[in-house]
């Protein structure tokens, strides 16, 4: 038996993965709240919209993944499609 295989890692426990996810939620909340705490130096007016970079990042990734998923319907082929 491979001793490496038996070793339990911190990440093997699903509870710890939840801890990371909740950690991410709280950091995101803090980052949103920081909007009240500083003065933004901006180039474009829309950057001043509340939490602009937060929801832009969120929606950008959502759109990216959902569109890419649809794109699969058109471009996906079998692995040996080119036959080499």
């Amino acid at each position, binding site marked *: 038996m491979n001793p490496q295989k038996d070793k339990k890692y911190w990440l093997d426990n699903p509870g710890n993965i939840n801890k990371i996810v909740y950690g991410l939620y709280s950091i995101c909340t803090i980052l949103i709240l920081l909007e009240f705490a500083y003065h933004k130096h901006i180039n474009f007016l829309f950057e001043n919209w509340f939490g602009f970079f937060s929801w832009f990042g969120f929606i950008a990734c959502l759109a*990216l*993944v959902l569109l890419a998923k649809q794109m699969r319907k058109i471009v996906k082929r079998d692995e040996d499609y080119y036959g080499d």
Partner: protein
Amino acid sequence: MIDSLNPAVILVIGALLIPILQGKLRTFYMLLLPVLSFLQLWMLPAGASAAFEMFNLTLTTLHIDKLSFVFAVIFHIATFIAVVYSLHLRDSWQQCVNLIYAGCALGVVLAGDLITLFIYWEMAAISSVFLIWARRTERSYNAGLRYLIVQIVSGLLLLAGIILYANASGSIEFTKLDLASPGCVLIFIAFGIKCAFPLFHSWLVDAYPEATVTGAVVLSAFTTKMAIYALARAFPGTELLIWIGLVMAAFPIFYAVIENDLRRVLTYSMINQLGFMVVGIGIGTELALNGTAAHAFADILFKGILFMSMGAVLLRTGKMNGSDLGGLYKSMPYTTTFCIIGAASISAFPLFSAFVTKSLIMEATAREGYKFAWLILLFASAGVFHHAGIKIPFFAFFAHDSNIRCKEAPMNMLIAMGIAAILSMAIGIFPETFYKLLPYQVEYNPFTVTHVITQLQLLLFSALAFTLLLRTGIYPPELHSVNLDVDWLYRKPGAYLAKHTMSFVATSEKWLFTSIKKLSFIMGARLHRHHGPQGILSKTWPTGSMVMWVAFLLGPYLIFYYL
């Protein structure tokens, strides 16, 4: 050091000795070459150049200014890292080609005239294909051939462009060119092919993932970055480049999300990063060109780390598909750490390199008032974190445990990744020192409260989107598949056409030859009938009969004459 010796020559000529050296001596020699070449570059006086006359042309084989100097420095660092990364190889030819190729790329950025540029350009193309063929599989052989054809086309266009340009302008100096003349358009397209412009990009995505473990690392550093340098020198401020760059930054990331081969994901991500640099060239202000040079510098390092970590995974597990990997952090903790540093650097986390390099380009875009372009770049920035920053480390080292247990990467690979990781972080932590290396003097402070907070918001909410999509099962799973790209055009209809053209040519040829054969047979038979042994014309005729015939002809003639 010799005053006008081109550092590129040290690498190219020096590399030829590698195959005849053995063991420790070879290791020492390979490490020494880039160091020697770098010392030569360092000792050359500012603005050094070397020129000589040939066929009434003045060839400037060496020309150093601040722009070429930045690229020459990072090319040396990349060469050294690549040598360390490939030390475990027992394939001296591949190690030799590594250095020849690196030397040729260096020659391109130090070239002062277009002819020298062309020579190094072609040598880099030809030497690099061996890094793909060195994998010695049929698949890599075919991919290498396709790669070589595209590279040669780029070279031919460059040559045609140079000839037209030189005839029109009477100069072969490599300097700012104007897209108004046809020669310059050809040169522009030649650069664009190597720079993976949209529709010309598929060679990169097709070939790099088929290269060897070390080959992909070396390839990722040079070809595209020397094209970026060439564009920055010849076409700064060309507005067309902004739009080309935006397509490059935004479009490939969709492919990156659904691609399974993790090294191929990195090639899409590479085009995305090149897009930022091309936008910088298109804007063309001092800040923007600084951004392009800085980002090329940073990209060679962090893309190097990512390719090196994936190479280590490929070496140890023999697998490169996201669907087959996972849980490798247990077996390869150091590689995992370096990969995460590379991922943080490409994603532009504060204190990592792209945070201080990409923001130069973003800031320049904003200062020139390109609102739409800036928004697309912001989208691409969120996307790069998603597909390169999260996807690469997550699917290789975490995700579901693939139960693969392997050894950690070899020590030389870890050292190579470590050097690149330290440099990436050093750029991110000490930007002021790094900015001094850039071509222009520009005031820009990346560490403002606004920049740090907005960047963290952008990145962490992207991570939030990824987490939610993954946990709800909406995230598209990694699947064994091929995704169609532009290369489909020449791999399917193109190949079909070529095959059928060939078979048409073959049939016509066959028909032509059989017809000629038949015809000559008939002719032969006729000749045989008349001139053969029994042929009427080859009989030996008695003299008497000839006299009779002469008399027979002359007789009536005489009669008619007198009548």
